[in-house]
């Protein structure tokens, strides 16, 4: 195995909302009444069924309650275990699936306030991502501006499958707000299920939905690049979370080839896709979709042509690795330092380097 070094930044942790009622204290009277009167109980996405093996490592599954719902477990099993200086919390709660923008807004506000109070207040290593009601651009921007005042929020969180491709101009006010406030956009696996979860329709199985996350990231990366998001917002960083990354080199070969062929269609894309990825796009480490042989993985890193793209993540409590093997075999000490320390700090500019990391 490759040993982690202390002082890293764990860029993908999933604190779980125990129950929709856990958010009631953070809602106004109207929404408290709506939730209770209408018998709403929970917002669990099909992307992560609670008892699915993907949703929690067997030894990280608590005796009761949802995996990731206990801060003491997260501290012991992830933060302490890997010596992380910071851990970025990306709540995966099904607020994106809601169809009413008013309801989504109320739930997102409650979720962000809950995260600050029940997680960030309790461990100063924890940082948060702002979950936004993407159902309304105005409300999403307002929520970013509201939460960004708390410097412990270091990122805006979106799902990889929504109503429209993420490069669409419709979403640009979100990107403008994020760039202005020094917040990367984190794009996490998962779907609002407002479209079929694959580009060829509805599959039969949970495993299909999970495999298809990688293809959704690929089409989103195309959209973000060719729509010109990074020509308009050159300082905006986007982080692909739980996306896998071994698909990146062949994806870029193909995108580059077609960009050369039909760039007249999108003339504002004035840099090669690989250059745009190098300057603006990052990927969380887990899952590593590759065989466990160091030789293969090192070839893949060579195909990526950059050691600055990957950010350390455990994806806690999701089951991506066993034991202490959070880093794949065969990484050089230099690359470990890049992945665990240098790359995350360069991406999340709201994080201040702690003494332990120096």
């Amino acid at each position: 195995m490759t040993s982690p070094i202390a002082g890293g930044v764990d860029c993908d942790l999933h604190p779980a909302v125990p129950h929709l009622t856990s958010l009631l204290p953070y809602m106004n009277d109207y929404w408290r009444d709506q939730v209770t009167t209408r018998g709403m109980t929970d917002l669990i996405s099909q992307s992560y069924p609670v008892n699915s093996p993907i949703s929690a490592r067997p030894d990280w599954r608590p005796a009761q309650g949802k995996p990731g719902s206990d801060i003491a477990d997260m501290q012991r099993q992830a933060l302490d275990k890997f010596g992380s200086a910071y851990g970025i919390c990306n709540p995966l709660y099904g607020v994106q699936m809601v169809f009413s923008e008013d309801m989504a807004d109320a739930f997102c506000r409650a979720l962000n306030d809950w995260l600050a109070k029940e997680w960030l207040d309790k461990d100063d290593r924890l940082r948060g991502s702002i979950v936004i009601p993407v159902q309304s651009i105005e409300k999403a921007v307002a929520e970013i501006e509201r939460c960004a005042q708390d410097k412990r929020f270091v990122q805006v969180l979106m799902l990889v499958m929504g109503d429209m491709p993420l490069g669409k101009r419709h979403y640009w006010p979100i990107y403008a707000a994020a760039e202005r406030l020094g917040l990367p956009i984190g794009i996490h696996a998962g779907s609002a299920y407002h479209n079929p979860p694959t580009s060829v329709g509805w599959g039969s199985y949970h495993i299909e939905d999970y495999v298809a996350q990688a293809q959704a990231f690929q089409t989103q990366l195309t959209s973000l690049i060719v729509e010109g998001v990074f020509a308009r917002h050159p300082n905006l960083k986007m982080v692909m979370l739980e996306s896998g990354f071994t698909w990146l080199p062949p994806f870029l070969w193909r995108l580059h080839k077609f960009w050369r062929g039909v760039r007249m269609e999108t003339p504002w894309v004035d840099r090669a896709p690989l250059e745009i990825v190098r300057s603006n796009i990052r990927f969380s480490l887990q899952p590593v979709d590759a065989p466990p042989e160091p030789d293969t993985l090192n070839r893949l890193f060579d195909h990526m042509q950059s050691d600055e793209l990957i950010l350390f993540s455990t994806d806690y409590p999701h089951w991506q690795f066993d034991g202490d093997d959070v880093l794949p075999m065969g990484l050089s000490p230099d690359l470990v330092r890049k992945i665990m320390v240098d790359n995350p700090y360069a991406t999340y500019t709201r994080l201040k380097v702690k003494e332990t990391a120096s």
Partner: protein
Amino acid sequence: MNVQLREIPPAASSSGIKTAIADCDIHPARATPDELYPFLAKRWHAHLETFGVHTYQGMMGGPPYPKAQPNASRRDAYPPEGGPQGSSLSFMQKQLLDRNNVALGVLNPLNTGQGIRNQDLAGAICSAVNDWQIEKWTSKDSRLKGSIVVANEDGVSAAAEIRKRAGDKNFVQVLLLSRNVEPLGQRRYWPIYQAAEEAGLPIGVHAFGFGGNPITASGWPSFYIEEMVGHSQCQQTALASLVLEGVFERFPKLKMVMVEAGFGWAPSLAWRLDKVFSRLHAEVSHLKRKPSEYIRDHIWWTTQPMEDPESRDHLFQTIEWIGWDKLLFATDYPHWDYDEPSRVLPAGVSGANKQAFYLDNAKKLYGVA
């Protein structure tokens, strides 16, 4: 890739392809819209002229994403006698087959009944296109072999069409498209797989088609380049569906060819499938082997548009992960992103791998001497 501006000398002199090759993705076109009429019942002539063709997208008679070139084809591929690119046998012989020493050319007709909502019309047009392939192409040039096109959403009619053509040496495969009403592993398509397996015919799954689903899992994108790049994502998902639904358990002799969707993504997809399968195999307990093993044994890949990394080592490593025995050279003639046979492989490939890549894999798969 892209339009050929300068005349490249024919094979015998300097193109580098002196030996025979197979071209596993050629698109024959109709010279005029009514070229199919001799093969279609009268009722459909009137139907087509009155109502046109209704597919799972909104545009009548054109693609929703305008192509980069007229008919997505090379501007130098218009036949001298008129008609769209790819519609003249003699000009195809001159520009493609003779020039490149093509010994086997696999025809993949695209404007057929596939993706038509009216299933009776879909079946009638597919059958007509199959007759037309024999009449206009394969019976006139023995290097050309046809693909049986079928009404893909109507498994029963599709299987009947395959059985009707089984054993006919004019055809070497069954053709489907990647984007259908449902992912290709779904049961509604299994009669097609059963009939193809019985007939000993591989199934080519060509990029494209419309099945009523947005072409990304996050809705409709804006640009043609997104559709083109996105074919590889649609193909990955279609292939994942085929594997995970157990198609290759149920039809163990079935072979499939991924046509015009790239191959570079295959290793990463297979690794991801295997990794997730190691966690979630209980959900798909009908699978007896790892997903990557089904892919390795059942899937072939056409090369165009050829993966084109800066470093040839990256290309060779990727091909080694897939297997030199699984790639089938294709030009995509007459489309604009045509791959020129003499330029597609970088230097440094062994003679045996070159021979497999350009010809032998295809001859073996398609059973052509």
